[in-house]
């Protein structure tokens, strides 16, 4: 294992220390319990927005704390959801009395830990709503799975709900927006290489030099099936087709197309995939109205990408365009 780290067990703490130093104008970092809050939190009379999850997906979630997005983020150990005792103070810090929405990616661990934190916060008088993100079409949402995972769509949920909270929407309204975005967003990923969890020291799975893993998650967990390496155009089509089959957009539908790098893929390749995806979507009579290309929800140094498609309505476009000022996403301010 080759990493720019000191002690594998200090990775998250040292990362967050560095993050706090680099973005001292934006956030305050608490190391124990570990969470990150907006420098200006709590922002008076605003609905609070809190998210969190295992580390290793940087810039998710701490990179999205700031004006127009999250009020607090709670990083767990690498690929391990944070514990309620960290989620609770983050939730309290984000609460101005207007209530808090927890954005939780749908994994058993995240759901259980945030559930407990929500109960504890409620017991302290905070009105808490939980919105699960489950956009990954690689996983069948059935009785026989833990349900679809939350992946790339999480960033879009956080951006749009964050903008709604920032403009002063009510707790109900922010919760509704978050759920609406989740209902209209779908994702699917591919890995060209595995990643290595620092404390494990060996790659999460093995791929031959000519193999790729389709339907990969963001936790270094293996995907649904393996294929021989194909062209970027062919892989893009493979990722988009289950997304479209599930989202079923009507012709003319305006979309946000998000090509996300898994951490180890050059930007050039993401743009090649973006080009291919745009062509397919436009050939299908759909309209790529907004876009995002880059490393936004990663799996350490994994090579690969995910495609996320969000069916936009007018309000979502307005919320997407609204100013945002975080470490990883910034415009209009």
């Amino acid at each position, binding site marked *: 294992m080759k990493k720019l780290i000191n002690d594998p067990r200090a990775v998250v703490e040292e990362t967050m220390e560095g993050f706090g130093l680099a973005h001292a104008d934006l956030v305050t970092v608490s190391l124990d*319990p570990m969470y990150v809050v907006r420098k200006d939190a709590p922002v008076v009379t605003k609905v609070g927005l809190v998210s969190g999850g*295992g580390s290793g997906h940087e810039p998710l979630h701490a990179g999205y704390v700031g004006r127009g997005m999250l009020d607090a983020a709670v990083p*767990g*150990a*690498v*690929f*391990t*959801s*944070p*514990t*309620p*005792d*960290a989620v609770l103070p983050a939730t309290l810090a984000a609460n101005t009395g207007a209530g808090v929405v927890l954005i939780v990616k749908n*994994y*058993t*661990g995240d759901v*259980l*830990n945030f*559930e*407990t934190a929500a109960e504890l916060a409620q017991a302290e008088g905070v009105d808490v709503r939980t919105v699960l993100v489950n956009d990954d079409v*690689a*996983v*069948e949402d059935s*009785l*026989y*799975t*833990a349900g679809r*995972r939350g992946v790339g769509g999480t960033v879009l949920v956080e951006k749009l709900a964050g903008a709604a909270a920032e403009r002063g929407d009510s707790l109900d309204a922010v919760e509704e927006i978050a759920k609406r975005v989740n209902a209209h967003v779908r994702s699917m990923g591919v890995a060209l290489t595995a990643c290595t*969890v620092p*404390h*494990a020291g*060996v790659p*999460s*799975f093995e791929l031959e030099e000519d193999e790729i893993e389709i339907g990969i*998650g963001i*936790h*270094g*967990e*293996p995907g*649904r099936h393996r294929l021989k390496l194909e062209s970027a155009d062919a892989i893009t089509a493979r990722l988009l087709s289950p997304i479209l089959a599930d989202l079923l957009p009507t012709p003319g539908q305006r979309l946000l197309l998000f090509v996300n790098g898994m951490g180890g893929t050059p930007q050039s390749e993401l743009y090649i995939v973006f080009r291919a995806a745009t062509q397919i979507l436009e050939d299908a009579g759909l309209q790529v109205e907004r876009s995002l290309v880059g490393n936004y929800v990663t799996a350490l140094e994994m090579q690969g990408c995910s495609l996320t498609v969000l069916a936009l309505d007018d309000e979502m476009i307005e919320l997407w365009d609204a100013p945002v000022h975080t470490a990883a996403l910034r415009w209009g301010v």
Partner: protein
Amino acid sequence: MAATLGLDWALDWLHRAGAVLAEQRMALIELDRVIGDADHGENMERGFTAALAKLEAAPPATPGAALKSVAMTLMSTVGGAAGPLYGTAFLRAATALGDAEELDDAALLAMLTAARDGIVARGKADPGDKTMIDAWTPAVDAAGAAVGQGPAAVLRAAADAAALGAEATEPLVARKGRASYLGERSAGHRDPGAQSTSFILRAAADAAGNA
């Protein structure tokens, strides 16, 4: 063999559990790497190390208090799926014991049953879903059948059944937890949580054998 088990046994159990989880850290990581995300061993070791430190810092007065202390520490240090599940298991087990100072066969069975029921309540897994439940359920059943043979026998029966249960998860297709994302590809690999359950129950039996 003692006819009942007390605080000494409980502390010995928890120390043995901490030791075996530390020792088997990489083995559990490896099981989780194959069908999960390679953190189970790390999570369990982190949790039990913290739990033992807490027991040291604030010594409990009863077996139930010891389990409750461990429950709270696991809840706040393990994270992931295993944290809340084991946390709930130890919490419910502690509640089942109340402030009893000495535990007989029936108390131990109640403890194991409460732990298992707590995991089911939180995780909603059925037997055969390839989770830690597949070690806990046969363990509870075997303990029930051994009631009357003394605490050490009850725990030995539970540990033996948990070991077989963990092994028996290998052919299963996962339906809960992270391994369920793999679908059919999860078959052929042992569930890490069932394995850690087996280690923890073996530690309980070993401590009883020494009591």
